[in-house]
């Protein structure tokens, strides 16, 4: 196979893999038997998956794997998110949400005598609740397929925050503009425990082929 064809096939494979994962994106992997090669990519065990601790999200640059058993609650994901995207530091406007889960979420969190806490991340929905709800069409799809807020259009009404079932967007009280995850990866790069990880599509594809 010429290099050109190889690259083309590789690209198609990656697209296939991404599409397959988009179907299960955001759902916990409970009920799936995951091959050893994939488990080692995700840095987790089949037991983690069976217990619903591992969730994956299809992102342009790869598969985002969130493992709550590894999250140590340092908030660096939130601090890096805002440092990089807003030029200020805040937990409230961070595009992923850890600190709100530290103490109480459902029957878990520190105050329920439970050391589980984890970062909620944007689901990157194929049919986005946030974008659909925006009255001024300020949430647009960029060339990577990610929904981003066009700040010039955003009126800060908060319809996206309400519409998102997980309330992931936040209207920044200082700028009065909504912010949502743009899949920049700053949170993952700075996670000191690997609780957030992006596995590149090439690696996912290779592991997926092992299964086949």
């Amino acid at each position, binding site marked *: 196979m010429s290099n050109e064809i190889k690259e083309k096939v590789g690209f198609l494979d990656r697209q296939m893999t991404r599409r397959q994962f988009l179907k299960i994106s955001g759902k916990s992997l409970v009920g799936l038997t995951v091959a050893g090669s994939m488990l080692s990519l995700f840095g987790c065990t089949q037991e983690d998956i069976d217990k619903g601790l591992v969730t994956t999200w299809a992102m342009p640059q790869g598969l985002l794997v969130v493992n709550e058993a590894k999250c140590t609650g340092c*908030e660096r994901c939130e601090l890096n998110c805002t440092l990089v995207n807003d030029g200020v530091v805040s937990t409230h406007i961070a595009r992923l949400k850890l600190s709100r889960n530290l103490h*109480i979420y459902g029957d878990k969190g520190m105050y329920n005598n439970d050391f589980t806490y984890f970062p909620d991340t944007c689901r990157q929905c194929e049919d986005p609740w946030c974008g659909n709800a925006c009255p001024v069409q300020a949430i647009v799809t960029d060339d990577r397929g990610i929904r981003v807020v066009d700040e010039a259009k955003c009126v800060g009404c908060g319809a996206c925050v309400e519409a998102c079932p997980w309330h992931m967007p936040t209207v920044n009280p200082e700028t009065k503009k909504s912010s949502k995850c743009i899949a920049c990866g700053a949170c993952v790069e*700075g996670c000191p425990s690997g609780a957030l990880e992006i596995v590149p599509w090439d690696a996912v594809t290779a592991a997926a082929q092992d299964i086949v």
Partner: protein
Amino acid sequence: MATYGWAGTILRIDLTTGEITKESSEKYQKYIGGMGIGYRIIYEDVPLNTHPFDEAAEIVAAVGPLTGSSVPCSGRMNFSFLSPFSRGNSIVDAHMGGHLGSRFKFAGYDAVVVRGKASKPVYIRINDDEVAIEDASHIWGKGTFDSNRILTEELGRDYQTASIGPAGENLVNYSTINTSVGNSGGGGIGAVMGSKNLKAFAVRGTGSVKIADPLKVKELNEYMLTELIGGNNNHNVPAVPQSWAEYSAVGGKNRWSGAPGRAWLKAEGGPIDAGEQPHYDMNKIAYRCNKGVFDFGEVSLNYTIKVGGCSSCPIRCYTQYDMDPLADYDLPTHVSNTCVPVIYGTKYYTNGIKDFKYKGDASVIINGANARAMDDLGVWCNYSNLNRDFNWLVTSGKIHEVIPKEEVDSLPWEWEKNGDPRWVVEILRRVAYKEGELGIGLGLGTYEMVKRWNLGKEFYDREDPNNQNITYNGYPKHHANEDTGQVGLLFNLMYNRDCMTHHLVNVTGSGAPYEVSKATMEGFFGPGCYDKKKAFTPMNRNKAKLAKWAFNGKQFHDSATLCNWMWPMTQSPSKERNYVGDLELEAKFMSAVTGKNYTQADVEFDSERISHLLRGMTAISFYDNLGETNLRLTHDAIPDWIFDGEADFEAFEEGATKMDRDDMNLALDMFYEELGWDKETGIPTRATLEKFDLGDLADDLEKRGILPR
């Protein structure tokens, strides 16, 4: 108005009148923040002969320009107040980690000043601009875990809270404020809050910390996290060999204890192995510290769920446990702690302890019971003086002289004999509720206890593993001469509580070969500054300069705020850097965050201003409250055991940690000289104070006749 770094506003709350006001923090920015702002405000507002529990006494809860700025290890906060427990009742701090400090910044405040006394139990609720004094009668009487939980349930999970427990409510000198996660601040802050009927702080901040140069901060963060940061206490080599590392700890043990094969065995979903943590891999840093393994050995892993700690810090020095054997005694099983509450709990058991479920787990479980009970009751241990004083009381038989027989007999001694975890909980309960002579005496703190029970000067002077008192003021050493000879002893004498200074123990305990650390230290501070442990040499000028650097640097950390367990970045784990850190990183971060151009000399100058303020305020307290005019002979007096212990050794002999009296006098001379203090009295001169814009302090000293001539 918000500026880069600083939030820009100081909040003032008078609990007597209910008045809430705001003012600009700008004029205090030369005191950096945290401790510096706290000391300056108390100096200006509160006569230093005010009783710590008086309505006129103030608590300054403060953070600094780097708090919540994303700079690694910037999650701590500081409370300044007059000490209820130590001799002279002068200025002290409670230092607390967790997630509360950054929320003050996000809500828009550099400091919150609380004075007065509420007519009924209250808590302070801050929701950005909205500040309210709220009724706390429903949580008064409850432990800190319940109090924090109830406040969060009521107010919403965006709030961060910290509460005092029964010990603080009952005005026990040994009392703390606690967050949800086991973070606490001590020094008697609980009782000072209790005296104001103030149960808790609850803070929600939706704003941000403004950063002058975000790209530079990101770049410096990554530089620090890949080239400079080590494990807990910034230990710069792993405890056991890792394939990427040239060295591992001499003796196989330090606080970079995470290693392949060491797994969090109770992690949800099954064991999580620490693996290797090459210094350049930012996504593995959280596995470096496994404090449980450092404290108890690998047996602790059987109870480990994960690790935790403060906001912004990648070094997770809190091990988070589920100690299921405690359930058999109807005690809570979830424990999260890092410091002495989870290390010296066994001191309460004079007959030894017994294993529970695994070989060697006795200490894990007993310490878990101790830590959880201390945090819930809000009891402070004064860096384990409480534990040592109790142990001494029982083992010396003194308990039978100072405690009525009926009360001694009322203690459940069979629990002590059987190593039952309820024993320590019962002792702490008596302290928190001032129950009986034992509870009252221990809870007063060493200084007042010695007076109450007529234990005399010899209590401080005796050579005994249970005596770690470093002055006659009622607090123990916190890494002193046993680590760095005169240098460590000098800064241990400077505060009105245990010094909490880790600048040097972080190097001596790092695990790196002595010659490697010595090259780094002498590179920074010149020849002869850094002795090998237990092979100390006589005093020299570079040691005095090193002690001054550590003393001033501690003030910077509690003001900026940065964690003094991790900062400064003295050493590095990188072979390419010859294991040399970057002491100027503090100034680089200050410049990038605040937009003001700081050199490291500027940082040290502003920090030294706080040192002089501490010293001047201490001099005033000692004069006003005790009539004493000479800090060198009183505040800084060193108990005999430091010089006369280790009878088989002479000072400076290999193997000795003891010091020599004449040499230590020379050390004080040199140290005072370096700081511009009078050698005879150890009090700052007018020239020194004016150099640091503290002319008003010089006037105050002069008025009392204690300004050096």
